[in-house]
């Protein structure tokens, strides 16, 4: 007595040039279930889902939807079959309103007027049914990512999707937003819709899926019932070896201060103070974590220290050199010369030029380093060699430094930036969301590298919205709320206390 299948994939193959992204993939997804897909960066998850959605064409294999063999020539065909997809990088027209984005491609007639009115009504109903509230007349670029994602989900539901594919939906969400999303997914499942969920967070897989499939290097290696597996087993299936889910580290032995921040205040694009009078220090040989719900000034703090965001008042001292940033602004290149390296949070936008090759991105910002050339000339041979070493060390796949960066999977793009900044052996490393979008094998590796950097006597300032990550890595935890540091705690402090601080409890108590 097996449940009817919503989707069945048989022997799907897909190549990109020399890369075989999908090899002979079989997959069965039961109707009315939430089916998780996990796998390392570059395992071929996004590719497989894009084939199902008609965005890419498979080189071979068969797709069956509701038991019938189908050909999905383009996304139009997929939509007609009731398949909807929320892509890893959103597919929204940024200067359109929510409503315009939702009706695009499903306008319901050559004139907009009738369709818009109907869409408005439908959107209202969907918002109520699924608790997916967003202002239909808001312009996309003004919305935070969490809401943009809701628009993507609304788009799919508006088209009557019965099968919803979500590609790493929680990568950009705060924990609260992720919880909200999961509640919605459960409602959808209980209504008989089928959900395919790609994620790197095994905890999410365990919490919400009914079944889970594991991909490795383009192949489907296993499918398990979620209730009959464990995070440890999944991790091992993904990476092909045992993975440490805990970070191993010795107590820190902090030395001299390498980064001192005094009364730093900075504004965001709209002229609002988002970092307010922040002071702290990071010493050699310690990792300082900044916890906080995203949007409380952590990103801007990193940018201000890195020399990307203008500072209104305050000073920063790097390894003994005091820089009065408000009076004498220092740019990112100068900061780097002082021994600071920076892994930006939004690496896709701020860390890479995706039309460049991997090796070009591997030295971006460090191209004046004498090791990479003489005078105005670049030594391409030396650069490629250095890039190859990083590729090997960070297991960036495919191991091809000539490939355009756009051709790498999302997680591998992240690793390119991480490798570039960490391998520079800085005095102080600023990292924002180091493991966003990367697989557990890579997380283990990145965590090890950060601890090794610390043990080598460097300072690390870590910003992450993952409380687990902060607690595992940091030697001291600062909590930010509303632009201010509202407390310092030891990493062993229990989660609920940190949670309260992050929610601004201390602030309110003081007032």
């Amino acid at each position, binding site marked *: 007595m097996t449940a009817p299948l919503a989707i069945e994939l048989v022997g799907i193959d897909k190549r990109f040039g020399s890369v075989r992204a999908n090899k002979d993939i079989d997959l069965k997804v039961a109707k009315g279930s939430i089916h998780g897909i996990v796998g390392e960066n570059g395992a071929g998850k996004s590719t497989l889902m894009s084939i199902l959605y*008609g965005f890419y064409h498979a080189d071979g294999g068969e797709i069956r939807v509701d038991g019938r063999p189908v050909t999905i020539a*383009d996304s139009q065909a997929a*939509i007609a079959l009731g398949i909807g997809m929320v892509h890893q990088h959103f597919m929204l*027209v940024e*200067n359109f309103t929510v409503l315009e984005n939702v009706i*695009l*491609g499903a306008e319901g007639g050559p004139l907009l007027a009738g369709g818009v009115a109907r869409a408005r009504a439908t959107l209202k109903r969907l918002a109520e049914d699924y608790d997916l509230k967003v202002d239909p007349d808001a312009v996309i670029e003004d919305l935070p990512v969490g809401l943009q994602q809701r628009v993507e989900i609304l788009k799919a539901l508006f088209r009557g999707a019965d099968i919803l594919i979500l590609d790493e939906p929680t990568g950009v969400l705060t924990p609260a937003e992720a919880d909200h999303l999961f509640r919605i997914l459960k409602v959808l499942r209980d209504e008989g819709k089928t959900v395919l969920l790609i994620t790197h967070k095994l905890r999410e897989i365990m919490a919400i899926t009914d079944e889970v499939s594991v991909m490795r290097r383009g192949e489907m290696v296993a499918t398990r019932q979620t209730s009959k597996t464990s995070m440890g087993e999944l991790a091992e299936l993904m990476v092909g070896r045992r993975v440490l889910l805990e970070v191993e580290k010795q107590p820190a032995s902090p030395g001299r201060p390498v980064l001192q921040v005094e009364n730093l205040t900075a504004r965001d694009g709209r002229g609002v103070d988002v970092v307010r009078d922040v002071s702290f220090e990071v010493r050699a040989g310690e990792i300082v974590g900044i916890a906080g719900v995203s949007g409380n000034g952590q990103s801007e703090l990193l940018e201000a220290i890195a020399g990307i965001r203008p500072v209104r008042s305050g000073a920063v001292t790097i390894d003994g050199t005091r820089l009065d940033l408000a009076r004498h602004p220092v740019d990112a290149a100068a900061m780097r010369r002082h021994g600071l390296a920076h892994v930006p949070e939004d690496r896709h936008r701020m860390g890479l030029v*995706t039309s460049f090759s991997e090796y070009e991105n591997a030295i971006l910002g460090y191209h004046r380093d004498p090791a990479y050339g003489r005078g105005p000339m670049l030594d391409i041979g030396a650069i490629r060699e250095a890039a190859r070493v990083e590729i090997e060390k960070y297991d960036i796949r495919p191991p091809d430094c000539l490939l355009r960066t756009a051709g790498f999977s999302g997680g591998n793009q992240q690793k390119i930036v991480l490798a570039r900044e960490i391998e520079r052996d800085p005095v102080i490393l600023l990292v924002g969301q180091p493991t966003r979008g990367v697989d557990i094998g890579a997380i283990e590796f990145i965590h090890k590298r950060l601890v090794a950097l610390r043990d080598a006597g460097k300072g690390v300032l870590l910003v992450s919205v993952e409380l687990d990550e902060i607690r595992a890595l940091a030697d001291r935890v600062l909590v930010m709320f509303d632009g201010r540091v509202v407390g310092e705690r030891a990493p062993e402090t229990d989660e609920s206390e940190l949670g309260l601080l992050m929610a601004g409890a201390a602030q309110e108590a003081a007032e």
Partner: protein
Amino acid sequence: MFETLILILDSTVRLATPLLLAALAGLYSERSGVFDIGLEGKMLGAAFAAGAAAAVTGSAWAGLAAGILVAIALALVHGFACITHRGNQIVSGVAINFLAIGLTALLGQDWFRQGGRTPPLSGDGRFTNIQLPFAEALRDVPVIGGLYSELLSGHNLLVYVAFLAVPVTWWVLFRTRFGLRLRAVGENPAAVDTAGISVTWLRYRAVICTGILCGIAGTYLSVAQSAGFIKDMTAGKGFIALAALIFAKWKPVPVMFACLLFGFLDAAAIRLQGQEIPGIGEVPVQAIQALPYILTVVLLAGFIGRAVPPKAGGVAYVKERT
């Protein structure tokens, strides 16, 4: 004084018409993400085809049809190079401009042997001026009469078509499905693709709209404004139209005002030719002719804020992560 003003405004309308048609033509293409600096070439090709066809058949309408067909053909060449083969849009546009200059001169000389001109048109071979009802009767009413009978009445059909094209374009762009998709594909083609719409077909349709309007613009030059085609008769109007388009931030109604402004400068330049201005002396014509360009640069640089082009403009669409 009032009479002079009416006269200048009247020729402003005539001079703005080809700019307006060409700028609206460019709007369709560029809003869809295909930059087009070949407006000039398409207009020139259409002007020649219209002049030649009208001369041979004696019908202005045949001229219009030929002009539109040739401009569409050139637009499709641009589309084939840039949409289908993902070629560089600027290079393709430049190539079309050169192609048009060369071919019109060559064919004109070969077919008509009048130094690149087409035979002069008369009668039904031209679009003649239309008198709106009561224009004569109202002529003597002060102010209103002058405005109505001089400014509004007495233009040829294509002038009215051009100004009618403004609200129509606005309506198409903001009130129809085609317009929504057109604007979307110029901003984020991947969003259009994943919404199940063909990016290629959509952009081809946009480019065809460009061809139609360029065809009318060219026809206006040789069959309505003048009585026949003259070598290089577009004289940079395609580029001014492009400036107007940028100036107006790719929006239809501002495009009209920008074209009227440039038309006005042109009309004033003609009026001021050889005239003494008290305190300044004779203004060199070149200085006034350069005004539209100078104005564009100055205004774009400081006054009207940044002109943000359609985000996906200039790049061919390749299915790939960005």
